[in-house]
């Protein structure tokens, strides 16, 4: 009996040792983490750490992180937090300087991350986790259209300048209108009107382009700083772009945008893309426009050029019991070898050395555009109540750009209701 008990205790101890080497990981769903999944067995073999990998749509990642991670308990050893929600989750995460050194893979020097992306994981003077993808607005324009000699001649005759990759919002409008009115494309522009975070990104892009910020931290509190006149100008311009967008674009999220750009025989002339999705647009099995896209930094507005950032940071919850194993996984993921492999899969990591590697200059033309966009990286405001403000902006922005309400009234509503949220939050 005594022997049996000893054997049982040993078995339990062994089992608990094995389970200590299992990490639960929660990531967002797109081509980038999906590509990584292929490589995970290699990590497991190299370290003996088993990875339970869960990927969900971004809103569900947010919800599940909210429910599953607290100061004293976590269901996950590693979670991804998108840029806007870093303030909300920062108190629950282990600052990067407290991550272990790594037994098999060397701790990643944060300076390997491109500076525009590194900023994403900074909060309260600390680096909270490690930015893992190079996601910010990159512009796509149909190469087959702008290189067509007939269109070039017709466009120049009408507008007096050369057809090409739109460098300004006005050029985007002109060129988009040209192709749309001739019925060459289903849309001269592809807006994003899906989720609140995406619409918020579009609004911030337009407001910045027309010379105004929306919310800034002033004296330690988020403060509405938008210049209403400039805000209305930005919205009015987007309204013009909506008029050359395909039918139904009022509700377009990523799926619809991709379908319109890649699967519609006429397609869309020009629009932004998150680099994380480039893999799908460049897949000849899924896309009619694979290898027919020119990538560039976004068109500039009257106040300059801006590229909205949407990067994810990987974070270890304070309550994780497997912090070292989780860190080991991140060091592997963010290593140069894996980053290079991910680039080959048409995805975009956050490492400067890989993004600027001349080996990929020709075969991955979007990398140069991403590097260019990074010079103009702009962040969406970050504060705890951002979800409420995003909903307000989405509601009235769409009402404004679709003509259900004047842009002036819509802007006023955005300002009034945002102020209410900030007031109720007692900043």
């Amino acid at each position, binding site marked *: 009996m005594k022997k049996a008990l000893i054997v049982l205790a040993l078995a339990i101890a062994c089992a608990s040792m094995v389970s200590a080497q299992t990490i639960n990981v929660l990531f967002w769903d797109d081509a980038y983490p999906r590509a990584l999944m292929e490589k995970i067995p290699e990590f497991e073999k190299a370290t003996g750490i088993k990875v339970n990998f869960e990927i969900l749509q971004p*809103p569900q990642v*947010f*919800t599940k*992180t*909210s*429910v599953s*991670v*607290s*100061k*004293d*308990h976590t269901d996950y050893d590693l979670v991804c937090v998108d840029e806007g929600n870093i303030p*909300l*989750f920062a*108190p*629950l995460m282990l600052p990067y300087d407290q991550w272990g050194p790594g037994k098999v893979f060397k701790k990643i020097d944060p300076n390997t991350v491109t500076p525009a992306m590194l900023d994403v994981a900074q909060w309260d003077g600390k680096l909270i986790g490690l930015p893992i993808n190079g996601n910010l607005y990159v512009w796509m324009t149909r190469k087959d259209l702008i290189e067509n000699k007939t269109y070039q001649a017709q466009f120049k005759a009408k507008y007096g300048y050369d057809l090409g990759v739109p460098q300004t919002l006005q050029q985007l409008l002109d060129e988009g209108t040209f192709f749309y009115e001739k019925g060459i494309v*289903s849309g001269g522009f592809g807006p994003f*009107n*899906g*989720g*609140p975070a995406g619409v918020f990104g579009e609004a911030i892009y337009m407001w910045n382009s027309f010379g105004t910020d929306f919310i800034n931290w002033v004296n330690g509190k988020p403060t509405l700083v938008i210049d209403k006149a400039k805000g209305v100008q930005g919205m009015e311009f987007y309204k013009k772009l909506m008029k050359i967008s*395909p*039918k*139904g*674009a*009022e*509700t377009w999220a990523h799926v*619809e945008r991709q*379908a*319109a750009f890649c699967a*519609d025989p006429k397609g869309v002339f020009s629009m932004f893309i998150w680099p994380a999705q480039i893999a799908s647009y460049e897949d000849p099995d899924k896309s009619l426009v694979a290898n027919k896209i020119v990538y560039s930094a976004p068109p500039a507005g009257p106040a300059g050029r801006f590229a909205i950032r949407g990067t994810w940071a990987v974070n270890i919850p304070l309550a994780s019991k497997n912090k070292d194993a989780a860190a080991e996984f991140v060091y592997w993921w963010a290593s140069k070898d894996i980053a290079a492999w991910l680039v080959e899969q048409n995805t975009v990591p956050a490492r400067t050395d890989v993004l600027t590697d001349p080996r990929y200059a020709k075969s991955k033309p979007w990398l140069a555009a991403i590097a260019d966009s990074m010079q103009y990286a702009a962040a969406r405001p970050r504060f*705890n*109540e951002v*979800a*409420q403000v995003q*909903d307000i902006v*989405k*509601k*009235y922005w*769409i*009402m404004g750009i*679709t003509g*259900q309400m004047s842009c002036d009234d819509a802007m006023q509503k955005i300002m009034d209701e945002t102020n209410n949220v900030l007031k*109720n939050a007692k900043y």
Partner: protein
Amino acid sequence: MSSRTQSIEQRDSTRLSGKARGRAPFLFLAPAIIVVFAVLIFPIVFSLIVSTYDWPLSEGAGARSFVGFDNYINLTKDPEFWNSLKLQLGFIFIAIPIELVLGFAVALLLNREFFGARVVRSLLLLPVFFLPILSGMTWRFMLQPRYGPLNTLIVNLGGPEVSWLGNPITAYIAIIIQDVWRMWPFMFMLLYAGLTAIPQELMEAAQIDGAGFWRKLRSLTIPLLSPTILTAVLLRIIDALRVFSEVYVMTEGGPGSATMLFSLYTQRQAFGYQKVGMASAMAIFLLILSIVFALTLVRKNMSLDVLEEKAGA
């Protein structure tokens, strides 16, 4: 003393005392009561308690603070709350009558035997078995302006492309149509069952007395079917108050907040804004609303029963 008397005394001596006998039914019922409380009552009580706290979801229970009825007061000041309530009630009062009329009409039509009647009746039930989330997704794609079949048909007939889900009014109509499509067979199912239970002798007697179709419908079918109708409506109202997934995948509450039904806004409060207390207050409000609907319809149903009994007497 006879052996029978002895055995009775013996049995009495093993019986429980009066006090213990009083407690016995409760002891036997206790497991059931505990289960009912744990499964049914406790979540509601817990939700009620949570609704009196300011409870940020991501900060766990440690960060909650008692705010009394502040969440309820704040709800009444929130225009989006009233908007979502208005949309929810509109959804119920438009969709359910359509489903009722459609279900009733088809039940009347199919309340006869003909070749293939059973197959037709079974096939009509198919939409009810469709997962709500799949129904929402299917309708979203059917209404897609560029490649959706509905617009393809309209365009081929010479009409314009319509952005069904991009316009606040058509989007609201679309979610109602989706619900009607999925749930009218439920009404049909209940009402058909009710119709088959109506004694044929009554109908035949009315016919002999010279009553036509409309007279029979007005004076016999509808009154006799009223309890079934009320039950069906009650079940649908309770279900429609909780509609979520199909609308979420169709519109996510948009465009703007044109289809932000009560349940969607509750979800936004809890998981978008991280305000668990506010979301619980909304859940309690919805519960009260459901109870009001249920009590009203049950009372109406009971009064119908009383009338029926009186008529029978």
